[in-house]
């Protein structure tokens, strides 16, 4: 049962690292965003729009989207290869897992494109 052909980098160690690095970026992004929302109650559109118009915030957001794609891929790969196994599903396991990962990949790509569109559409 070959599973490492669908991991992010074909190296478990590199995947492990990518998961950690992307996790730290996502943590920083969400802590900032939640912190901003908590410290700005009653925010209006102009303020919200200005935040995401800032070049730094766009770079930060784009970085978070890239990190999200890598992080979610490693995470969903881990889950798929742990649970969608021959033991659980029998002979069809490889097909089911491949389709599941294909759907995950398409969804992540769609999230990324959508995110870019939001950031540069404003």
């Amino acid at each position, binding site marked *: 049962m070959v599973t490492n052909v669908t991991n992010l980098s074909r190296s478990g160690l590199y995947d492990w690292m990518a998961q950690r690095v992307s996790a730290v970026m996502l943590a920083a992004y969400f802590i900032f965003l*939640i912190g901003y929302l908590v410290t700005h109650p009653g925010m209006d559109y102009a303020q919200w729009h200005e935040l995401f118009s800032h070049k730094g915030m766009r770079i930060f957001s784009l970085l978070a989207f890239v990190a999200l794609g890598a992080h979610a891929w490693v995470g969903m790969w881990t889950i798929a290869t742990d649970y969608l196994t021959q033991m659980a599903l029998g002979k069809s396991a490889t097909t089911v897992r491949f389709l599941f990962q294909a759907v995950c990949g398409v969804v992540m790509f769609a999230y990324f494109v959508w995110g870019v*569109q939001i950031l540069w559409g404003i």
Partner: protein
Amino acid sequence: MKKAVKSQRPVNLDLRTIKLPVTAYTSILHRISGVILFVGISIMLYALDKSLGSEEGFVAVKACLTSPLAKLVTWALLSALLYHLVAGVRHLIMDAGIGETLEGGKLGSKIVIAVSVVIIVLAGVWIW
């Protein structure tokens, strides 16, 4: 299962037949919260798209967030995010070699649960 190269090779344990310790619960919750977030990102992106698209959209999202159902969904997503974050920080701490023993792992799991419950309740207070 087909015969492996060596007959004494270890066989994967079937998780469904094993009674889970506290560390297993925090681990599976980390995975479940991750899947919830993977799906939930679509809701967050939708809200971000709408709120940044136009002033009317911003007002609509803000108005929507006053409904009890929207508050519940927001709280659920925020809870998944906060739990995933806390459990993730624990992973990074363990990567640094801290709390890797059996006792350390159990204590770490309990700390993750305690910290998560506190900030999830705080998040609920913030939303309502």
